């Protein structure tokens, strides 16, 4: 704080900066609160999706285990290894409080979307159909989970940043500026006072001199 020069110009500059800082602080605080609100919504959604994905995937695995129990490994691999469809991912970005977050949508190419079984039914077991069906069901949740989880991470980062800025302004920048302003004001007042006193003294002296000179 010692680094400020106690002049009127610096004082004015500081006052302007303080005003900006205070306005910025208020805005950032609002931003943080809104981000937080959205973040908590997303966390809630994430929790639901995570639970349903984990349950769905585990179920599909166990169906797959059942399938591999009744079919030979070679048959199973042969049935699954040449998918009829291929999934393509479309990524768009939308802005949540100026944080770019991805939005996923997928499209399947080749084959109709309803036809998920890449094999003929003659040599495979019904358990395999069940496993694939379950996996296909859980897949749309998996995709949404990816979107929600990414959004959550990006928002968390932004909130952290904003919170730091808010705190830096609130606890460091603004108090420092206020202190500097106070220091300069006091220094200027002091100068004013001493100038005034000096003038009064000089006036006394001048008067006295003038008086003495006359008589």
């Amino acid at each position, binding site marked *: 704080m010692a680094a400020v020069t106690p002049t009127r110009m610096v004082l004015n500059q500081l006052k302007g900066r303080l005003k900006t800082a205070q306005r910025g602080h208020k805005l950032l605080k609002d931003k943080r609160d809104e981000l*937080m609100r959205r*973040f908590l919504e997303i*966390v809630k959604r*994430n*929790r639901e999706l*995570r639970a349903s*994905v*984990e349950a769905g*995937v*585990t179920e*599909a*695995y166990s169906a*797959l*285990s059942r399938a591999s129990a009744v079919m030979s490994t070679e048959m*199973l*691999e042969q*049935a*699954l*290894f040449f*998918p*009829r*469809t*291929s*999934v*393509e*991912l*479309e*990524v768009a*970005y939308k802005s949540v409080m100026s944080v*770019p*977050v*991805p939005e*996923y949508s*997928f499209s*399947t190419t080749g084959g109709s979307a309803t036809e*998920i*079984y*890449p094999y003929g039914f003659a040599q495979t077991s019904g358990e395999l159909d069940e*496993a*694939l069906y379950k*996996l*296909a069901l859980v*897949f749309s949740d*998996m*995709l949404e*989970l*990816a*979107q929600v*989880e*990414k959004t*959550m*991470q*990006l*928002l*968390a*980062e932004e*909130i*952290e940043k904003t*919170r730091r800025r808010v705190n830096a302004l609130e606890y460091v920048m603004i108090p420092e500026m206020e202190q500097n302003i106070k220091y300069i004001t006091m220094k200027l007042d002091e100068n004013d006072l001493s100038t005034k006193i000096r003038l009064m003294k000089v006036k006394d002296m001048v008067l006295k001199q003038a008086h003495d000179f006359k008589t």
Partner: protein
Amino acid sequence: MRKIAVLGAHDTVVGFKALGLDTFAADDEGTARAIFKKLTEPDAPYGIIYVEEGLAIPLESEIARFKDDPSVAVILIPGRNGSLGLGSGALQAAIERAVGSKLDN
């Protein structure tokens, strides 16, 4: 146009293969790391990478690097042996980061 990758143990990924996702089987840490590195190269076409939880433990630091990258989402999925709770761990970590302290439940 981006693609979706699934990285996991051989048994885990076969099912996803049939769905039409790009699957990568890795049964040990070394291969998993090499594959993950390849999947996350800047010109790789993958927008979402699902990683099996079991393989994600040794890859933790690699995965953490993509947390703030909006172009790649690395999502943990449970493996054959059920959920290890790592996926919800990521949730807790994000909450802790945003709130500044841990929230219960």
